């Protein structure tokens, strides 16, 4: 059962990822990316990291994708088509990617992973205690750092996107 679900998810992820990087329509590409991300969250559900899955859905599907759609709406018209790279370049890069994939997979398959059989379910409580622990091995400091980072990037994004008014005030009076 899980096996079938995993294969379906893997297929969804890979097919839509390829679609996402090769689509000529901007927004479609974003939606394909959304499918990829939902598929990834499905994998998290499968391996019982429900919290992570929900985070993936909230942050990526609900946040990043919506932001992307917004920016596409602002900067793109529905009838515009994306310019693709030259065929020669695409083939070259695709070839390089394939060779890289081969190298990576060779490395992965030649390595013996010591897998521990387990079916534990991680609860939100475990994650919370680990993340906010200030004992040895606790993650309270990076957690706070990340919160500062988020605040900073929020302010930065607002400041940058707000920008300066491009219209000249003198022109308004005319």
């Amino acid at each position, binding site marked *: 059962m899980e096996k079938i679900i995993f294969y379906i998810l893997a297929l969804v992820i890979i097919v839509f990822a390829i679609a996402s990087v090769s689509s000529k329509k901007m927004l479609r590409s974003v939606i394909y990316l959304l499918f990829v991300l939902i598929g990834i969250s499905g994998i998290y559900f499968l391996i019982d990291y429900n919290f992570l899955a929900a985070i993936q859905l909230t942050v990526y599907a609900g946040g990043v994708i919506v932001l992307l759609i917004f920016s596409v709406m602002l900067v793109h018209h529905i009838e515009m088509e994306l310019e693709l790279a030259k065929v020669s370049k695409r083939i070259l*890069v695709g070839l*390089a990617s394939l*060779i*890289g994939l081969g*190298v990576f997979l*060779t*490395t992965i398959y030649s390595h013996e992973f010591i897998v521990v059989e387990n079916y534990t379910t991680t609860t939100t409580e475990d994650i919370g205690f680990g993340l906010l622990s200030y004992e040895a091995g606790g993650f309270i400091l990076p957690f706070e750092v990340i919160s500062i980072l988020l605040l900073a990037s929020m302010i930065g994004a607002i400041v940058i996107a707000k920008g300066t008014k491009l219209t000249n005030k003198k022109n308004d009076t005319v």
Partner: protein
Amino acid sequence: MDITYTILIPLIPLAVFLLLGIFSQKIKPAVSGVIGVAGLSTSALLSFYTAYQYFFVHGKVDGVYQAIVQKTTWMNFTDTLKIDMGVLIDPISIMMLIVVSVVSLMVHIYSRGYMKGDDGFTRFFAFLSLFSFSMFGLVLATNLFQIYIFWELVGVSSFLLIGYYYTKPSAVSAAKKAFIVTRFADLGFLIGILIIGFYTGTFDFETLNAVNHETGELVLNWASTSFMGLSVITWALILMFMGGAGKSAMFPLHIWLPDAMEGPTPVSALIHAATMVVAGVYLVARLFPMFYFVEDGYALNVVAYVGAFSSLFAAIIALTQTDIKRVLAFSTMSQIGYMMLALGVSKYEGHDGLGYMASMFHLFTHAMFKALLFLGAGSVIHAVHSNYLKDMGGLRKYMPITNITFLIAALAIAGFPLTSGFFSKDEILVAAFESNKLIYFSGVLVAGLTAFYMFRLYFGIFWGKDTKYKHAPHESPISMTLPLMILALISLFGGFIPFSKYVSADRAGFDAHLNYPLAAVAVSVGLIGIALAWVFYKKENNLAEKFSNAFGVFYKWTYDKFYIDEVYLFVTKKIIFNLIAAPIAWFDKKYVDGTMEGIGNKTVVISNKIKGMQSGKIQDYAFSFIAGVVILAMVFIYLWTN
């Protein structure tokens, strides 16, 4: 004796130069004049204080004036060969300090009146201060290299001041001419310095000039390689004298001096009459022991003959010139030739060193009365707005002070008894008589010619025909006449200074006295010259014209300065440019530039081809990065698995 403060003498004008130069647009002309005069006055006071301290308080040890040196190492080449910066105080440098500061101060004061209303007033004073700084530095230099640095600085300021009216093409070309000619001469100077540095291993004046009093020879072991029958040191000295000749306008490097009169008249007074042009004399005097002892004074003979010839040559040209500043310029050249001649005939010790002392004495007195002559001429030019003798005449009624001071100066230069020029000229002639009769006779002839052309000038300006002026000329303002009067006083009474007590070749001092027979000869020759001038030019008549017609071709040659300029032009333009420079330029353009341009073109072509790699797109770089990583990974996997 602590002489550290003397460093301030050049540094104050430098500070003034920087101040005026940087803020030249902000400072009002009146203020900049005051600043310049104040700076120079301070330097002059310090010079006088130094002179007093040296001559009367500290300088003399065991009856000999010591050279006091204070220096710091600037560049260290080897253990012995190093270049210092410092100040050197000895009788001639102090004498020069006095001359430079007094004349410079007078010129500063004078310029405040003369340059009034000029656009570049502040610039002018900045340049004057720069010149004063360089000249003080030159005078105080402790070694050949330092003197060379200031030598060039002096040249630069001279260039700047000649070309002061840079909107006037003649001024610009005169500045360039002066610069190029002196630079050519300085090439010899530089080569001489390098030869000396190579063979003696030192640039220091003290080491070079040190004299062993027991054997009466240079301490320095100068016996070295010979070249074309002469010791290389002699060659070096001759080359250095070439630099001095360029700066001092000796034949045949004199051609820049007449043209340099394009500069403002105070500049001519300061630089091209009193101070800078005697730098050559000062250089020879500075190295006098070397000149005298190396190879029995062969180089010194060159100095003497060049000086004598230049002196006669310039005096002859001065007879016919009509531009009053040019007359004075040739007169300057002639008088400097006199000084060179005196140095050339001098010996080293005691009374035998009379020529050296006389040369320095004449330098001093000449600076004063020649500056006075130029300033007086400036005053006249200021009044009639012309340089030419034909536009002048009968000015004595309009400009009494200028008239009297000019007369004093003319008497002094003609060697009229009891004026300063009389004493110094007399001693030169005495020295020449004791040494070389030929030079003596030419000196006497020059004395007569000098008296004649100087009074030709004087009568032509202040007596002669009664020119009708558009605007009635008037006496110059007090700021211009005051320096005239001060300089006139010095010219009158400067001869009574017991110079030989203080300045002599071996620094010991001796008693000089008049040689009455020789003095009588000189004076009578001078008086004959004055009388001839009286006859020709006192009243308006055509005697002079008849006389010059009688000389015909010779007059023409003299008037055109013996075509020396044309010779130069022929040599440079026709011979050097066409036969040497043009082929070299062709080779340079065709092969040297061609190679360089070829390399450049090839680089451009190649870079055009490969610049696509630097697209500036991170994506392309990322591709290279990932491809590189993958290839490296493959290589490593291959290596590990085998």
